[in-house]
Every structure is written in structure tokens, then in C-alpha cells.
């Protein structure tokens, strides 16, 4: 009896997972130190090589050259305008494409007929490279931010749609039957089983789309723009200023990291029960 009560009283017996997480946590400071060290060594080698003339600073720039471009652009305010423009296009396009695509994908669960009907069209649209469609968007929506927002939305929508639809299709049949046995309507089954059950897929789509969104915005700015990090890179490469080009690349990397962290936070909030 006591043994049974003890078995019953155990909560969250997941020692294997905890142990693995524990050892990961122990290793983390070491990993961070090593990662910082690798970056520091590479930057130092690059800087020394460039100063000593072993590496062409015209072709490869130098960390100090990039830092100088960034600090001057930050001081003049141009950097913040460019970052603001690209961030605005990315966030708005992401919201429309990724969130809109996810909602559409989930909604397709309602009608297998509509889902099957639209499948080849979704596949066809998904196969269009954003680079080939971007010039058309610029012609249709102008050289301002609107065309970039549309390009970003286009870059994200199919991945979001297909991911969330797959998630919805994988809704647990036994859970759906349980809902039916309670007399649930189709909407209740959708909201209480399909949507929460598909959330890991939806979040996965959002994570994938962070990269696609930034690529969409930069590609749009490459083709025609008045501001943005893509614009900064194009101007730099047109005038052979490698410092400016690489400064743009550094900013893009930083933006991807920041957006990924935000989506990571979103993931932890939405999938709080998976922790």
C-alpha cells in the first residue's frame, strides 16, 4: 500500500530529461567562453592581417574599418534610419505573411475539400523564388516600404501556411473523438484541440520565417529602395566600399539574432506547457 502511495505521489518523474538539461547547463559557460574566444581570435587575425598588408583591406576590409563605418553611421543617425526601415518592413511583412499564413493553414482544417483543391496552387506559389517575383512587386507597389512589406509577406506566407496546415492535419484523432463524445461542435474541436495541438508546428513555421522575412526585405531593398540595410549594402558595393558592405552584413546578422530571440520568447510563451 505504502509502495503504491509512494508511486502515486511522485510528480514529474523525468530524471533523464532533467539530467541532460542539467549537464547542458553546466557546459554552457564553457561553451560561451570558447565561442567568444573563437570570434576574438578570428577578428584579431583579420585586423592584424589587414594592418600588416597580408590581407587586402580593399577586398576584405577590416574589423576596425567596419566598426568605424558603423560608429559614424550611428552618430549621423543614418544607421538607425536604415535599421528602422528594414525592421519595419520585416516585422510588418512577417506579421502579415507568417501570422496570416498560419491562420489560413489552420483554417484549411475545416474543409478537406478546399485544402485538396488549393494544394497544387499552394505548391506552385511556394516554388516561386522571391528574387523572381520581387521586381514585379516593386512595379506594382512602388519603390517605398509597401513593396518590401509585400515581398516579406510573400516570402513567409507559404511556409507558415503549409506548416500550420500539417500541424492541424495531425490533430489527435482520439482527442477529436473525445470532443465528439462530449457533443462538441466543429468550432469547439477546432479551438480546443486542433489549434493548440498545431501550435508546435505554427511556432516552427514562425522560426523558419525569421530568416525568410529578413531575406525578403533585403532582396526588395537591393532591387530598388531609398533606405534600409539592403540599400546601404547596395550603395556600398556600387562604390566598392567593402567597409560599408560588411557593416551592412554585420547589422543584418544582429537583426536576425534579435528577431530569433524575440520569436524564441514567443515560443516559450506559446508552448509554455512543453517546458
Amino acid at each position, binding site marked *: 500500500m505504502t*509502495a503504491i502511495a509512494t508511486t*502515486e505521489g511522485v510528480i514529474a518523474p523525468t530524471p533523464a530529461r532533467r539530467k541532460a538539461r542539467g549537464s547542458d547547463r553546466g557546459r554552457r559557460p564553457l561553451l560561451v567562453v570558447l565561442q567568444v574566444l573563437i570570434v576574438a581570435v578570428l577578428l584579431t587575425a583579420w585586423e592584424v592581417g589587414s594592418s600588416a598588408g597580408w590581407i587586402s583591406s580593399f577586398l576584405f576590409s577590416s574589423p576596425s574599418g567596419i566598426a568605424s563605418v558603423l560608429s559614424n553611421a550611428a552618430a549621423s543617425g543614418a544607421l538607425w534610419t536604415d535599421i528602422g526601415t528594414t525592421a519595419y518592413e520585416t516585422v510588418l511583412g512577417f506579421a502579415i505573411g507568417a501570422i496570416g499564413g498560419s491562420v489560413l493553414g489552420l483554417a484549411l482544417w475545416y474543409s478537406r475539400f478546399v485544402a485538396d483543391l488549393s494544394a497544387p496552387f499552394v505548391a506552385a506559389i511556394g516554388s516561386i523564388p522571391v528574387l523572381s517575383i520581387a521586381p514585379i512587386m516593386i512595379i506594382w507597389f512602388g519603390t517605398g516600404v509597401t513593396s518590401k512589406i509585400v515581398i516579406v509577406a510573400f516570402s513567409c506566407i507559404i511556409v507558415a501556411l503549409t506548416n500550420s496546415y500539417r500541424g492541424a492535419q495531425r490533430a489527435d484523432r482520439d482527442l477529436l473523438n473525445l470532443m465528439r*463524445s*462530449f*457533443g462538441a461542435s466543429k468550432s469547439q474541436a477546432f479551438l480546443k484541440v486542433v489549434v493548440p495541438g498545431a501550435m508546435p508546428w505554427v511556432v516552427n513555421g514562425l522560426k523558419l520565417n525569421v530568416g525568410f522575412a529578413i531575406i525578403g526585405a533585403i532582396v526588395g531593398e537591393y532591387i530598388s529602395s531609398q533606405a534600409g540595410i539592403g540599400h546601404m549594402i547596395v550603395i556600398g558595393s556600387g562604390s566598392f566600399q567593402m567597409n560599408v558592405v560588411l557593416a551592412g552584413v554585420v547589422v543584418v546578422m544582429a537583426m536576425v539574432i534579435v528577431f530569433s530571440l524575440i520569436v524564441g520568447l514567443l515560443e516559450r510563451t506559446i508552448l509554455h506547457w512543453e517546458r
Partner: protein
Amino acid sequence: MTHTLEVRDISHRYGTDDSANLVLSNLNFHADAGEFVSFVGPSGCGKSTLFNIITGLLAPSEGSVLVDGVETTGQPTRKIGYVLQKDLLMPWRTVMRNVVLGLEVHGVPKAEATERARALFAEYHLEGVENKFPAQLSGGMRQRAALMRTMVTEPEIVLMDEAYKALDYPLKIQLESELMENVKKSGKTVVFVTHDIEEAVTLSDRVYVLKAHPGEIVEEIRIDLGTDSPRINERRLATPFNDYYEHIWRSIGTAPARNEEKAA
């Protein structure tokens, strides 16, 4: 006489009308208020199909299901609740929110649903886990929460499909004892589907033995262990237990499959 649950002339085929796909053949049985009725049989006797037909999740090819004399064939009804081997707790909901799921679907206001569920937590030995997630519970606690989710909606009939199969033996015995107590207190009708003869004999008032290919009732056995104790160990040790066990064992073992009957 009106029975709480009555199944009349149920046959079910999957696919075409070819008799090879006949899963259930001409099943007739009933269960009354407060009765514990079990179905035992070998693999392929159509227990799960029968379960889905009784719950209304599946419409049979022929026959009808009546609850309190009203036909419910192919129509899920609130009078029937069910518990499966899989606890089917939603991992994204807390235990409390899982337990009130049925009430939520029935449109019971949240405060009232929570209050009704809270009263059951002590009875099912789950106090203190209301706000935990299913992944934080042990297997036994999860099964209790699943049973609570069904019981809180106050169905007249509870269907259980090998609900305790995945649990270790001592825990299974404990949960079965609790189930017996709850059933006796609440006066509900329980229809229990199992492979386990011991489970069927210790829990049931009546046992139906099924044969496979197609599923057919070969025998109805009234169980009287000579004790009213809800404790499974005591029931297991009752003198008539072994006779019933052996009888059912032989009944299952000797139930001929349809092709053997034809050959004979």
C-alpha cells in the same frame, strides 16, 4: 422493461458487404443502472468497434443502441462518458482545465465548472495538482484525472476500454478498487471492455464472452463472488473466483471462429 443501455442486433462490416469484413455479428445485450458489465474476448473480437458503436462515434451497419429506451445509434450522447487506455489529457491544459473540458463543451460557466470539479479532486486523491500540467503527473494520477473528466459530466453510463492496461499491477489494483467504490456510490452503469479475465471477474456483475472473426457473444455469465467488498484483493481471494476465471478461460479458448464453424 427499459434498460439503461440496450444494444439490439448490432452487426458491423468494414468496407464492402463481403462477409470477410464482418467485424461484429448480431450482438444483443443490455446493462442496467448500477450494473458493472464487462466484455472479454481474444484479439480481433471487435471490442473497440463495439465501444465506438456504443459511444455513438460509429454508426453500425445494422442494429440499434438505446439509452434509457431512446435510440442513440451513431449519435454521441451526454449520457455516455468514456475512458480509454490512453488518458487523452491535453498537454497544454492544466489538470483542472482538462477535468472541466466536458463541462466547458456543455456550456457550463467556468466558475461553476471549476467548483464542481474541485469537489472531486479530494475524492480522487488529486488534491494539490489542479494547476499542474499532465506531463508533471504519474501514470496513475493521469488515469484518475481522465476518469474525473468523465465523471464530472455526470454520465449515466461509463464505458471503459482497457483503461488500466498500461499501469503497473499494484497501481491497477488500487485504481480498480477506487473505481468499484465510486461506481457503488454513484450508482452508474459501467461497461468495461478488457482482455484481462481476472479484471473482468473481480469488477463485474455480468461478463459477456466474445469470440473473434467476427465478434459474437458466446456466453453471458452472472458473477457472484459472495462479497460486497470493493477491494480488488479481497474479491480476487473470494472462493468462487477461480471457477469463474477458469470457466471464462475455457469459454474464450473453445469459442470457434466462423471459418472453423463452416469447416465443421
